[in-house]
């Protein structure tokens, strides 16, 4: 008798687990929590490049850039004048869908807020400036096509992101980012600074869930 009841009990347990699983699987709901922009709450969701990486890299690399000898050398040669830098957008040579505009703006902000350098509009922003000047020209304004006051860049800052990812086939992935930035003197094409920042993340994904 006990033996014949066992399949029934198993079936009951199975059905209960099934329904429980269904409830868990289909529980939905959205909550939104505002955080400080510099807060790392929430952390990494997928392991891909995110705002935390962009903030971290921009801050550290520009701090490094501005503490190197090229800055003092330039000021010494130019009676204390601040160097003028044109920042070219960071290039994405990685396999992540990085919003390079967001990252580039973080870098630009760090440079500008340091107060130690002057920043020219990036090349892709120049179109807007030229369009505005053309508009002024059509109205006969003073700024009409007058580019004489446009500053020449002393340096060009450029950079790129590359990745080297590896997986073990069982759900573990190592994502390695290498961000490289270079400061090039425009007159001589000499590289006066090169910075690197590495980020390494280990992403573990469970092979099974209930």
């Amino acid at each position, binding site marked *: *008798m006990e033996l*014949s*009841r066992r*399949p*029934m009990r*198993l*079936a*009951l347990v*199975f*059905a209960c*687990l*099934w*329904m429980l*699983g269904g409830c868990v*699987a289909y529980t939905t709901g959205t909550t939104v929590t505002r955080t400080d922009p510099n807060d790392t709450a929430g952390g990494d969701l*997928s392991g891909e490049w995110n705002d935390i990486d962009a903030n971290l890299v921009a801050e550290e690399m520009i701090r490094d850039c501005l503490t190197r000898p090229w800055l003092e050398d330039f000021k010494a040669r130019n009676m204390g004048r601040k160097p003028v830098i044109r920042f070219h957008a960071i*290039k*994405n*040579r*990685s*396999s*992540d*869908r*990085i919003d*390079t505009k967001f990252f580039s703006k973080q870098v630009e902000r760090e440079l500008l807020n340091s107060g130690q350098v002057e920043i020219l509009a990036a090349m892709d922003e120049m179109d807007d400036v030229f369009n505005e000047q053309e508009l002024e020209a059509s109205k006969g304004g003073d700024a009409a096509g007058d580019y004489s006051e446009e500053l020449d860049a002393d340096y060009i800052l450029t950079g790129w992101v590359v*990745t080297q*990812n590896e*997986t*073990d*086939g*069982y*759900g573990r*992935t190592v994502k390695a980012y290498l961000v490289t930035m270079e400061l090039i003197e425009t007159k001589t094409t000499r590289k006066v600074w090169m910075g690197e920042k590495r980020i390494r993340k280990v992403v573990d*994904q*469970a*092979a*099974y*869930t*209930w």
Partner: protein
Amino acid sequence: MDGHRTSAAGPGRSLFGFVLLPGLIVLAGCQHGMMGAYQQIRPTMAAGRYDEAARFLTDQKDDLYHKRDRVMFWLDRGTLLHYAGDLEASTRDFIAAEKAIDALFTKSVSRGVAAMLTNPGVTEYEGEDYEKVLLYFYTALNAVMSGDLEAALVEARRAQERLHALEVYYTQEGGIGTIYTRDAFLYWLAGVLLEEEGSHNDALVAFRRAWEAYDQDYARLFGVGPPPFLAEDLVRSALRAGLPDLADEFRTLGGTGDSIQAFQSNGELVVIAGVGESPLKYDYFITAQAPGGYIVRVALPALQVVPSGIQHVRVLAERSTADAWLLEPVQTIAVENYAHRLPRITAMATARALAKFAAARGIEAAGNAMSDGDGVPIGDVLGGIANVVNLITEEADKRTWRTLPAEFRVARLWLPEGTHHVEVVFENALGGVVDRVVLENVPIHAGQRTFRSVRSIK
């Protein structure tokens, strides 16, 4: 004793009768909805009205696709949106599919158990290996056609990473899961995109990988060797990378390097033609009688090649013409990889049939225990119902990316700077025109490439 048995049997019977068995049938569902969906959009696709087909899928999504089929929905609609010219929306769908595929690496045990008691269609569809890779063809093409070369290269790199992850996965499990570990077509596409970016060394590496993959994998496994223009790509990229000795080596493959001259005064139009329809899956049933009068039925997915009348594709632009070469035999990859995996699929289907048989016998035994002495053959009835449920729910997993073409062909031709009227002609074996796609005002810039993507399912 009887009372105890009755009280225990009561809820059990209701669970089986009213929850579990109908639940299994509902969960098992049927895959006719999505199969029917394709039949409904097919005439619209054949007429080239891809926007209409995409709208239909959007409107009917909830009726035609289960949540567990969302990867298939995004792949299907992303393709239609691509050919409709809505590149941004197409990319959104493919990225959604990619994220779901990644998440589905984590397998659901409960759904796995349910699949063993019903059919594999109750699991969440994560796509075939070639589907997981080819979605990047569309995201890369969407990006480059939108003028975002950098994003296109990101997609090409993601494709290589996906292939690498698949290769590692199958190597870990003994190398029996797939024969598709390199995608020659996507290597070639990456080479072309890298060359556009000016990364000639990287382009050369990509073209070499493409050659090796065509020469070693595609020719042997899928009957497709390197296209003639790949030798020229190798010579040109070697010269541009400053490696004349290597270029000389590649000249023996048929390249000349003349395309460097052609690039100086012309632009190159690259037309990628999606031809035909990827194979559909149908049920192949094996039925047998088991001891006790049970009928055991095993459903295996069988691939059916969808015949296409198209044998040649030509691209005409004013006085220039170019034949399109087969670069990605999607249909052959699907069929050959399926044949490679068939023993494993058969083993899984057999295990499922045995599990369902055992479950039916267990239900019968439980029923017999309940009906002990009261004269009602509950066990026989429940066992019979369970057997019928097993037969009804037995179904192979027939889900597939239905809107994917059977093959991709590529035509390349040099055109002078300016805008051009281009016709893509799809021909049958006798040279008769089966379909024709007209591309108006195609811009060509000297020293650059212009990409266009067309499709015919006739």
